[in-house]
């Protein structure tokens, strides 16, 4: 893989050593107002029977170190995307703290939040529509992140976008084509190029391969592994598919109904699951 020049005009964000890149502490996200019954913490159901509030996640803690891949697995509605949205500063948690590169960013808003998103974080969503502008070219979608970070030289933006484009194994003649005309797998590649555009230290992947053909899925997973080996990023990958997690993750969180029910080294958890839910999950997979 050829080396992609770092964007000189973008002041790179420094990664302090001795601290995780991303650290969540006791994150709770509540949709709805809550009541005494569910706020007390004794109620562990995802939906409060008294007030009807839904807990996207509850008391979730995690940390990810440079070069590490953390997997989050769980059934639909278990809160995986919620945890990722908190990590990407898309939503502010109801309680708990978020640390990015050692700084508490729990209450980051406006400009600061935009800066962190632009320089410290990259994200790939399950649905490309949520992240890419369909009537904008592949190059433009990748360029947007550099422009958002304050880069103002057209040739430099374009050549870096093109380098990322080809590095994600996208055909060069599709660089100036609107992504609305791309296949699902190609869109995920564009999302990856966009996420990496500003060389962020943290990469968040929300179901990066679901909804793709199996063969396409395998090629995207290979690409993610290569990106990981190459850039030494801290990666959080969310999936309901244990095969994906097994292939990518060093460590693993198992979520169910908004709670983390088990965590540990991926091999360990999958070899010897402790929680009945994880046991069910593993046996269903094999």
């Amino acid at each position, binding site marked *: 893989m050829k080396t992609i020049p770092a964007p000189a005009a973008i002041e790179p964000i420094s990664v302090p050593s001795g601290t995780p890149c991303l650290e969540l502490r006791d994150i709770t996200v509540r949709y709805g107002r809550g009541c005494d019954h569910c706020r007390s913490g004794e109620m562990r159901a995802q939906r409060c029977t008294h007030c009807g509030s839904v807990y996207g996640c509850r008391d979730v803690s995690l940390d990810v170190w440079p070069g590490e891949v953390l997997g989050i697995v769980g059934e639909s509605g278990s809160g995986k995307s919620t945890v990722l949205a908190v990590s990407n500063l898309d939503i502010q948690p109801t309680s708990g703290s978020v640390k990015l590169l050692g700084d508490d960013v729990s209450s980051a808003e406006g400009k600061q939040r935009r800066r962190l998103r632009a320089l410290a974080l990259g994200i790939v969503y399950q649905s490309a529509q949520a992240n890419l502008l369909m009537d904008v070219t592949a190059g433009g979608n990748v360029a947007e992140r550099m*422009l958002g970070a304050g880069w103002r030289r057209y040739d430099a933006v374009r050549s870096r976008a093109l380098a990322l484009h080809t590095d994600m194994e996208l055909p060069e003649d599709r660089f*100036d084509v609107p992504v609305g005309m791309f296949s699902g797998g190609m869109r995920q590649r564009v999302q990856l190029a966009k996420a990496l555009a500003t060389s962020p230290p943290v990469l968040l992947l929300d179901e990066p391969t679901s909804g793709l053909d199996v063969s396409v899925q395998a090629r995207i997973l290979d690409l993610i592994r290569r990106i990981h080996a190459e850039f030494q990023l801290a990666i959080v990958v969310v999936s309901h598919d244990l095969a994906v997690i097994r292939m990518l993750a060093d460590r693993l969180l198992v979520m169910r109904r908004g709670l983390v029910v088990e965590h540990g080294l991926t091999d360990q958890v999958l070899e010897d699951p402790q929680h009945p839910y994880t046991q069910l999950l593993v046996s269903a997979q094999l």
Partner: protein
Amino acid sequence: MSARLGELVHRNGGLAGYNYAYMDESAKREVRRGLLKAISLPGHQVPFASREMPVARGWGSGGLQITLSVIEPSDTVKVFDQGSDASMNAIALRDLISRTCEVPTTTDPREATLIQTRHRIPEDPLVEGQVMVFQVPIADPLRRVAPRMTVSRRLHAERDYSAIWLYLYEDHARLGRSSFASAHPVEVEDRYIMTPSPIPRHDCPRLNDAPFISLFGAGREAIVYAVPPYTKVRPLSFEDRPFEIERFATGCALCGATDTYLTEVDGDANAQLVCSDTDRCARRRTR
């Protein structure tokens, strides 16, 4: 529209029944309050209570409300439209202003203290003390990229302009140049991105460090904004893709000028390029 008003004014004997400058004093004060805020925050869009005017919204009612709010009997007014003092719209507005404000009018921008315009800045250099009033159809330069006003207000507040830069990137990637023929977005005093109203690119650099005051009014959107004298105004462009004004193959077919903005007119046989600023062109020819 204004002809009917004219009849009314006549029937009632001059200005009887109308306040000076048509609008009532409280409405003018409201516009002036908006303008003061606009001048304090160059390029920032300020909402104001846009009134019904005896011209349809979209026909210069925003500019007209500004003119009527700041005008004094000692002013001399020029109104022109796409460079012409003789267009229907310019005539109607000029007629309304001169009747209700009792001010002399002129076509020579050098004699005017207040110039209301649609789509042009006069070619003649303007000086300190002169006021330009621009009629604005669409006030928000982010309209194309963020159609919802609530979103666009937040983008302005946070100075989040990546969407408009992306628009520019896409232009260069697909066309090799910016696609803004008129209303090329400008950055004001390194802060707000503003639309200079649909003036041609030729006129954009003339807003930079200008000695005159520029006031912008969008009646339909109920927005005013301003550029005070000697303010930095920079057309949006990549560092390595400099902003360029229109270039013409020939000079003006009438006066021979080579440094003016030209428009095509249908001659009998073939189309000709002539000065869009008709007053200045006529003066050059008679000289």
